[in-house]
């Protein structure tokens, strides 16, 4: 890290500390926690774009899958729902996978000719209806079990941090599927494929109530850290808060946030260390050789397609991990909250602003952009107050301007991205 890089990090730290002093330490820590998660997402995208030039605009989907991983691992199982339709749903899913695998087999085994598409169509249509015949009643049965509180299968009741790994694995699995199809004919069609799959993942999460309650949301996810109310009842904690001269309620929220920050920071540091090590290894050198001159790398017998698939899966898994962490931090899983601008394109802004191809850059971008994302609204509100101060109270224009402040953040993100692209196209911390 050069002195310039270090001072950039110091500036971001000062911005967050300023939030602590001027607003509250609670808000500052909230920014830190989401900044850490954003930094991890940015790391994931940076692996794909920065090191392999892969254009993933379905980050949202992988993040949401990560959240699903946390839910299905950590939530307690709903026994009656399992009894009502658990095995049947699983067999329906197996049937679905079998149909598709069978279709692929048929396509490969059968000879070219008019018979092949005909047989394939019949196979797929039959498979689809069979699947629906098994699937639909099971889903109805599960969703009928106390729909107001559960109406889904629940999870496995395992520790939530295990769910983070599961989230990463789910994202990796999805990435494998997409990458297999969309990477490396003569050219890729990854961009449109990821854009589409992300929307589909969100549609599934909104609709498949049996899986994660759909738009009814899953709330009350177990935590890896203590609960505020428990802390406030612990004599030991109260004594320590007293010693620091803090209100016990504030102290408990700060403590919980600090715990999260600690865990997240460890994971972030581990990821940075891992990716830096990987980059310096022969594997990393090869990745860069491929990126900088694919033709030459191919001529040297490197399997470009396989490398691209690898790094696409790795990057997506990191995004999934971040998504699981975020769902845990929120304590709830809300499918309708996943919006592409926030979860895909904002992460891209982080990577580009921070510096494509540089892990530290991605981390810096994650923190900085998240800080702006949060703070543009109060800043904008202040600005609008100033701008409109000359106008009469209650004039429609003034009301409109004040009401519209919330949308300033999108505008600001666009302006930041364009400014950086134009005047510092390699980002704040360029690739060495």
């Amino acid at each position: 890290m050069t002195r310039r890089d270090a001072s950039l990090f110091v500036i971001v730290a000062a911005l967050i500390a300023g939030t602590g002093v001027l607003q509250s330490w609670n808000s500052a820590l909230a920014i830190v926690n989401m900044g850490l998660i954003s930094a991890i997402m940015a790391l994931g995208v940076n692996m794909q774009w920065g090191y392999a030039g892969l254009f993933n605009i379905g980050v949202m989907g992988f993040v949401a899958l990560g959240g699903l991983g946390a839910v299905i691992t950590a939530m307690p199982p709903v026994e009656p729902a399992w009894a009502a339709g658990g095995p049947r749903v699983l067999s329906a899913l197996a049937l679905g996978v079998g149909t598709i695998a069978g279709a692929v087999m048929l396509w490969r085994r059968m000879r070219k000719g008019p018979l092949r598409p005909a047989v394939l169509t019949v196979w797929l249509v039959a498979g689809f209806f069979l699947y629906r015949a098994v699937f639909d009643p099971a889903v109805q049965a599960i969703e009928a079990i106390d729909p107001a509180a559960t109406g889904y299968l629940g999870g496995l009741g395992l520790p939530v941090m295990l769910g983070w790994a599961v989230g990463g694995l789910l994202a990796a699995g999805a990435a494998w599927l997409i990458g297999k199809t969309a990477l490396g004919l003569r050219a890729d069609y990854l961009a449109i494929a990821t854009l589409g799959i992300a929307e589909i993942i969100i549609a599934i999460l909104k609709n498949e109530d049996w899986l994660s309650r759909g738009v009814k949301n899953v709330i009350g996810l177990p935590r890896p850290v203590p609960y505020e109310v428990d802390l406030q009842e612990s004599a030991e904690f109260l004594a320590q808060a007293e010693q620091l001269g803090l209100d016990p309620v504030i102290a408990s929220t700060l403590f919980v946030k600090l715990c999260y920050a600690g865990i997240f920071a460890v994971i972030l540091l581990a990821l940075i260390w891992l990716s830096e090590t990987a980059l310096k290894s022969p594997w990393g050198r090869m990745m860069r050789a491929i990126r900088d001159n694919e033709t030459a790398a191919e001529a040297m017998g490197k399997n470009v397609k396989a490398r691209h698939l690898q790094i696409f899966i790795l990057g997506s898994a990191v995004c999934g991990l971040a998504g699981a962490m975020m769902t845990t931090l929120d304590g709830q899983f809300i499918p309708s909250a996943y919006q592409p601008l926030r979860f895909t394109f904002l992460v891209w802004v982080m990577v580009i602003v921070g510096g494509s191809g540089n892990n530290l850059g991605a981390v810096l971008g994650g923190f900085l952009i998240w800080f702006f994302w949060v703070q543009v609204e109060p800043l904008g509100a202040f600005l609008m107050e100033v701008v409109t101060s000359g106008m009469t109270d209650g004039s429609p224009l003034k009301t409109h301007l004040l009401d519209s402040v919330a949308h300033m953040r999108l505008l600001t993100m666009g302006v930041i991205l364009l400014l950086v692209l134009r005047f510092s196209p390699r980002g704040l911390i360029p690739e060495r």
Partner: protein
Amino acid sequence: MDFLNAFVALANFVLIPATAYGAQLALGALGVTLIYGILRFSNFAHGDTMAFGTMVTILFTWWFQSMGLSLDPLPTALAALPFGIVVTALLLLGTDRIVYRFYREQKAKPVILVIVSMGVMFILNGLVRFIIGPDEQRFADGERFLISARDFKEITGLEEGLAIRTTQGITIITAVIVVALLFWFLKSTRTGKSMRAFSDNEDLALLSGINPERVVAITWVIVAALATIAGVLYGLDKSFKPFTYFQLLLPIFAAAIVGGLGSPLGAIAGGFLIAFSEVSVTYAYKKVLGYLLPENMEPEGLVQLLSTDYKFAVSFVILIIVLLFRPTGLFRGKTA
């Protein structure tokens, strides 16, 4: 009779809505494909350009309405449309001047322009929400139906009604006119041919004395018109909501890619292919089958292949299938 009823139901709920939707997607995809052909990148801001153009048109519509201007029985928005197009064209030309031109001079790689268009997308998205708000707006006025279901039933004596909304009729007629004009322009005018030449072989176009900046400017103006028309037609037919327009990006890209990026004909074919599959896969066929099947075989469920929430999945699956088997799209685009 039952067969006729079934067909009318199908036309009413699938064929007509899908045709209108397909026309809207086709117009959107034409804009995407033109930018891809001439400026050589996929414009992520296209959905938001449509939203911007529609917003301006809505604002003019409100203004005209407040002055008592009306085209009754046609929607007032049609009178506002030219103004929406002009303002959007000015916006796009301004964006090109301030943002994109620099990268052209730098001979920037297309993927850099894609990222630049993300920035423009954010700005337009914020701008539209800032000006008109994120909420749904309905701005269709005038006569609601060309043929209402009741009239149709009375005229034909059929059990099933066929309604054609004015907006659907306008969509289809406008789309036909716009597409005809566009193809005439590209095929028969000097400027249109120079655009095709530029798209085909940029260096040779320069050697022939074609001015690239002029080609680019004209492209933006045409794209502004296409995007605004597509957006206004969609908004009249359904409703205007900034986020919905942003989300139209996926089916529009899918349409342009399925058709073969860079091919105007492909964009149209792609638009209709995507629209028809979306609507027909997510339609509940209970009613249609009810007419066709004997009494005792009538289906119990809705007979819906996929819930409407999965409509994006349909565009996506079609896209993947086409790309797997025909990597250049239906009409060989510039991507071969």
